[in-house]
């Protein structure tokens, strides 16, 4: 990184060279300074909406509608949060979201790992065609399948249950997840499998005792992405759940936007809506703080080149 600078000054011996290199350096410094300004402006623009959400959630509605807006609440209204939880089943919705994730995520990881193992390690007729078909399913617009799936689950009597949101996760876990894990398994040397095979291990033992321990980074990445996907999912829970008690956090938040005012008092509900948006975003941001590198890992694993 700093290497190029030192070579430039090492070559520059004569005064003429020196002034030229100094000019180049000054130019470089100006460019770097401008880059910092641009990055800072972008950084502010990107974070401002989040800052304003939290700030709004801590103001009174009168303060939010004052003639000159207060960027920082004059007196932080921490009470907005308990109030939100008191007048809306927010806690229930959050719990529902966590329950759906707890029921779906293990299935997604387990079935995707198994399928990825088949694609990465076994030779069998039709494997490559199945693999291409699997990648092709990523192209299908979700609406095409949602309608017949809805009708199917309706036949099963699964409307207003969590089955439509959890059972499919146990059946493959999504094309992208499988693809990611398959790429990772391919990068593990086959010698390890073969050594275990010599020791008399069967395919299940090889997967469980040899590969899975080595797949930790990939599995964590998949788990993090799976958590996010389910937490943020709106359309599925929205069409399958229509009793307020069953809503997930995403559907609940959408439900809150329907009423312009708080039912009991008639005051504008914007500050509480912002509190709800904050509450819904918080688990995701927390996860990100703890698993930041796994987000980057996910991109690297997907291989980009395809």
């Amino acid at each position, binding site marked *: 990184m700093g290497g190029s600078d030192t070579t430039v000054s090492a070559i520059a011996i004569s005064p003429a060279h020196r002034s030229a290199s100094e000019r180049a350096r000054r130019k470089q410094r100006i460019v770097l300074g401008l880059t910092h300004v641009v990055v800072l402006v972008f950084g502010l623009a990107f*974070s401002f909406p989040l800052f304003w959400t939290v700030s709004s959630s801590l103001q009174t509605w009168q303060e939010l509608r004052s003639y000159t807006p207060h960027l920082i609440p004059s007196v932080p209204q921490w009470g907005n949060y308990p109030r939100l939880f008191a007048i809306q089943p927010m806690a229930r919705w959050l719990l529902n979201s966590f329950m759906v994730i707890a029921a779906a995520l293990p299935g997604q990881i387990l079935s995707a790992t198994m399928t990825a193992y088949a694609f990465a390690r076994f030779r069998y*007729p039709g494997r490559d065609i199945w693999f291409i078909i699997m990648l092709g399913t990523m192209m299908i617009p979700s609406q095409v399948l949602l309608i017949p799936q809805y009708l199917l689950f309706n036949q099963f009597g699964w409307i207003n249950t969590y089955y439509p949101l959890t059972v499919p996760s146990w059946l493959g876990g999504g094309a992208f997840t499988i693809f990611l894990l398959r790429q990772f398994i391919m990068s593990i040397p086959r010698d390890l499998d073969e050594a275990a095979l010599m020791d008399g291990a069967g395919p299940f033992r090889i997967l469980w005792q040899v590969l899975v321990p080595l797949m930790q980074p990939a599995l964590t990445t998949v788990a993090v992405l799976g958590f996010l996907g389910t937490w943020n999912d709106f359309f599925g829970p929205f069409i399958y759940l229509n009793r307020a008690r069953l809503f997930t956090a995403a559907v609940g938040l959408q439900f809150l936007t329907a009423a312009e005012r708080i039912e009991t008092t008639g005051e504008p509900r914007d500050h509480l809506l912002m509190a709800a948006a904050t509450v819904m975003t918080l688990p995701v941001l927390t996860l990100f703080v703890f698993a930041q590198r796994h987000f980057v890992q996910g991109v690297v694993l997907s291989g980009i080149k395809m």
Partner: protein
Amino acid sequence: MAMAGTASARRSRGSPALRREAWWGYVFMSPWLIGFVGLTLGPGLASLILTFTRYNVLRPPEFIGLGNYVDILTRDELFYPSIARTFYFSILFVPLAIVGSLTLAMLLNSHIRGKVFFRTLFFMPSLVPIVAAAVLWVWLFNPDWGIVNQGLRTLGIPAPRWFADPRWALPTLVLMSLWSSVGGTRMIIFLAGLQGVPEELYEAASIDGANAWQRGRHVTLPLLTPTIFFNLVLGIISALQVFTSAFVATRGGPAYATWFIGLHIYKHAFEYFNMGYAATLAWLFAVVIVSLTILQQRLSARWVFYYGGQ
């Protein structure tokens, strides 16, 4: 596996070792295969059959031939506009999203301080659930009380009514979608692509006298074309399916200004329970998406450059 040695020497189709390998392959693939047949292939075919019926869930489907197709293509006043609107959204969004993500990635790839900090800052909006993002953007851009218009009024700039104005609603939605995706995975993919450019190519270009712009234009850009292509394909597929943000922020309004094909399908399926009609809409739309993707694949040979062949 002692006997496998002799069997593998001939690698014939029927050898027990190969048959066993095939069996295990299918065993491990079975969760996905069951899901594929039961939740993708089966429902896909079922919905294709539905397109030839009138079906409102309560009564059994009634065969009407090509009736749905004819209705959609000749009588549905919202169909063509909703398709056009969806394309308009994508044409505004995708190029800006790709240029935006690439710009942020290049900024993060320069010699700035606090890279991790800024990467986090750019990435955070993409973590905000779409529903929450829509809720907060409606509030930010509230025509009367939103901070954006308060700010504009203070500066004496005429403030548009954003989501409440039919002319502004769609561009505002594009802006919101940019905020919630420009710094996300797409940026990280570009960053990885930029870091994957071999240093010696830059050195060689410098020795040949190329300046920073020329290095960017003739070294970085060609090497990034596969990454750009990848993001373009994914970007178009996801932009054409725009639904949740519009549904939560504007419900397709005002005056149908954000009534995308996704919303049109949703309304017919889950509000009017015109399942046959909705399935037809969805299939027509799927044909558009798939043919666009194939077209892009064809065109890619003209501009995508793979370093070192392949």
